[in-house]
C-alpha cells in the first residue's frame, strides 16, 4: 500500500504519527511555558494585577537575600538529596542485581510500594514519625535535635525527600548494575582480584554512569519538590517551589512566582545540559537514558 508514494511524500507522511504528541505539547506545554516566561517580565501592580514590562522581578530575587536564599536552599536540598539517595540506593540496587531470588522479590516489593504510593502519603508518614512522641524521636532519644525531633527542620525535609526519591535512584542503578556483564566480574576474580577489589575496580567504575544519571534525575526532581518541604518544613523552611505556590496561589504575585519558576527551570535545564554533554563524552546514553 505504500507502493505509489514518492520518497518525499513518504517522508512527510512519516511525520504524521508525531502530529498528535506535538500538538498536545504545543498547547499544553509550550504555550504555558511561554506564558510564564512572559509573565516573569511583567510588573506586579497588586494582587492579581499586572502592568507593563520590567526586569524588576529578577532583580528582586537575585538581590534580596531572602529569595536568593530560597533558591539556594532548593539547590542545596536537591544536591544533598542526590548524594544521599546515591549512597543509600547503591547497596539496595547492588543487592537487587546480585542477591538471591527471594531477596530480589523482597527488595523489589519494598522499593515498588513507596514508588506507587503518593508522595503526599509518604510525607505524611514521616510527619507521624517525626512527631514528638513518634517512633523516631523515641529512638533518637537525647540525640534528637530540638524538642520536636526532626519536624520543621531541614534535616527532616532532607530525610523525607530522600525517601520519596530513593526508588527512582534504586531503579536507575539497578538498570545499570543488572546490565553489567557478569563475565567481567568473573574474569577479574579468576585473575585473582578479591571480591572487594573487583567491586572497586570493575563494578563501581562501570556503574558510575548510572550513579550520575540517577543523581541528576533526583536532583532535577528535588529542585521542584513541593509536598515534602511544605508539609515537613512548615512555614519557616521555605524552598523555591513552596514559595512559587505561595506567591501564585495565595499572594497572587504572578510575576514574582513566574520569575522564580524561570530561574528554577534554567537551573534544571543547565544541569541536564551538563549531563548530556558529560555522558556524550563518556559514551553514555544521554539525558533520555535516565528514564529508562
Amino acid at each position, binding site marked *: 500500500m505504500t507502493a505509489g508514494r514518492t520518497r518525499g511524500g513518504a517522508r512527510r507522511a512519516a511525520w504524521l504519527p508525531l502530529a498528535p504528541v506535538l500538538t498536545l505539547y504545543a498547547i499544553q506545554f509550550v504555550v504555558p511555558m511561554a506564558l510564564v516566561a512572559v509573565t516573569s517580565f511583567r510588573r506586579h501592580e497588586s494582587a492579581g494585577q499586572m502592568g507593563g514590562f520590567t526586569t524588576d522581578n529578577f532583580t528582586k530575587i537575585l538581590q534580596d537575600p531572602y529569595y536568593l536564599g530560597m533558591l539556594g536552599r532548593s539547590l542545596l536540598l536537591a544536591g544533598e538529596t542526590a548524594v544521599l539517595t546515591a549512597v543509600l540506593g547503591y547497596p539496595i540496587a547492588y543487592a537487587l542485581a546480585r542477591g538471591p531470588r527471594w531477596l530480589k522479590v523482597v527488595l523489589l516489593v519494598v522499593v515498588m510500594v513507596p514508588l506507587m504510593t503518593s508522595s503526599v502519603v509518604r510525607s505524611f508518614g514521616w510527619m507521624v514519625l517525626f512527631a514528638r512522641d513518634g517512633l523516631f524521636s523515641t529512638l533518637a532519644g537525647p540525640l534528637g535535635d530540638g524538642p520536636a525531633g526532626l519536624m520543621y527542620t531541614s534535616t527532616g525535609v532532607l530525610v523525607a525527600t530522600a525517601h520519596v526519591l530513593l526508588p527512582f535512584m534504586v531503579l536507575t542503578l539497578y538498570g545499570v548494575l543488572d546490565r553489567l556483564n557478569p563475565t567481567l566480574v568473573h574474569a577479574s576474580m579468576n585473575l585473582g582480584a578479591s571480591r572487594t577489589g573487583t567491586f572497586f575496580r570493575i563494578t563501581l567504575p562501570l556503574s558510575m554512569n548510572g550513579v550520575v544519571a540517577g543523581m541528576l534525575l533526583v536532583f532535577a526532581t528535588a529542585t521542584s519538590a513541593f509536598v515534602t518541604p511544605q508539609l515537613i518544613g512548615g512555614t519557616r523552611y521555605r524552598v523555591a517551589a513552596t514559595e512559587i505556590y505561595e506567591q501564585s496561589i495565595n*499572594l497572587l504575585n504572578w510575576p514574582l512566582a513566574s520569575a522564580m519558576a524561570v530561574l528554577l527551570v534554567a537551573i534544571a535545564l543547565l544541569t541536564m545540559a551538563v549531563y548530556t554533554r558529560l555522558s556524550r563524552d563518556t559514551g553514555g546514553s544521554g539525558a533520555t537514558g535516565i528514564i529508562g
Partner: protein
Amino acid sequence: MALRSGSAVPPTGARRAADRRRSAGAGLAALLAVGLAASGCTSSGTASGGDEGTRTLIVTSFGGSFETAQKQVLIPEFEKRYNAKVELTTLLSGPALAKLKAQGANSGFDVVQFSGGQEVEAGTLNLIAPVDAAAVPNAASVVEQAKRGQYAPAFALNSTGIIYNTEKVTPAPTSWNDLYDTRYKGRVGLPDISNTSGLNTLYMLNQINGGSGTNMKPGYDAVRRLMPNLHSVYRDGATMTQLLGDGTIDMAVFDSGYAYLLRQQGQKVGFVLPKDGSLVYGLTMNVVAGSKNADLAQKLIDLALEPQIQVEFAKAAGYVPTNTGATLPDDLAQTLPVRSEIERLSVADGAVVSANRAAWTEEWNKIVAK
C-alpha cells in the same frame, strides 16, 4: 473508559517481551482500579452533582474543629431543611480571597467564609454579593460588632489570645509581654500570618509597641525579639493542637474557640485575652458574586444566624454567638469568653489590613524564616 485501550491489548505473546525490567509494573492500573473500587468507590454517583433536583452548594471552610463543628451542627440541618447538599472545601480566609480575586465565580465556590475581615476587600471588589434582608431575616437581630452593612453579618465572634499549658506556665500569662519570658525559650508557638490569628498577633504586637497602620516597624521588631522563644509557626489549629497537646510548646497564640475545645478534650490549658489589648473578629459567610446558587447560599447564611444553631455551634466549637436571641446555658457561658470581655477588645482596621496584607506577609515571612 480510557483504561480500556490498555486492557484491550492482547495478552498473547507477552511472554516474549524483551523489556523484562519493566514487567514489574504489569497489571498495576487494573489492580489499582479494582482495589480502590473494592475499597469503597463503587457508588460513583457521589462524584459530582448528586441526584437530580438536589442542588449542591460549594462552601469554603477553615478545616480543623471549626469544619468538624459545621459538619455536625449546620450542614445536616441545612441539607434536611432545604433538600440540598453542601460540600465543604478547606480553604483559609486569605487563600479563599486570593482564589476569588484570581477567578471570581469561576473559582466554583458558592459561599466563602472569612475570619479576617476579608469581606471588606471582597465587597469593595464586588467579589461577593450583598444579601437580601428578606432572604436573611436573622441578619436583623445580630449584635453591633457582627454587622457588615449590606453584606452578610458575622455568624460568630472569635478573639485572639494566648493558650497556655496550665501545668508548665505559672503564673498564668496576662500580657503579650509574657511570651518573651526567658523561661519559655524555644517553647512558644505563633500562628502564621496567612492565618487570621497570626495577622492579629502582628497587628497587636505593633499596636502595643507604639506602631500604627502606616508604621509597622515596632511590630516587626517585636516579632524579631520573640525569635529566641519561638519554636514554630503553624498555619492551622490542628497543628497548634498537636504541638500544645504533645508538650512540644507551652504557649501558643491562637483563638478562643480552640482554647475552649482543648479544654473540652480534657487538656490542661488556659486561655487569656491579654490585658494590653487584643482583637475580636467576626466569622462571616459570604455569597460569591455570580454564584448560580445565590438563593440557596442566603438560606445557609440565615440558618447559621439562627439562635438555636448558634448555641449548638458554640457548644461544638467554642465560638461566641452573634444573634442577640442566642442564650448560652450557664456552664457554657462560663467557659467561653463572655461577651462583656469581648466588648473591650478592638477590631482591626479592615481597610488598612487589606491594603498592606501583602507587604506585611513578605516581611513576616522574612523574619520567621530559619
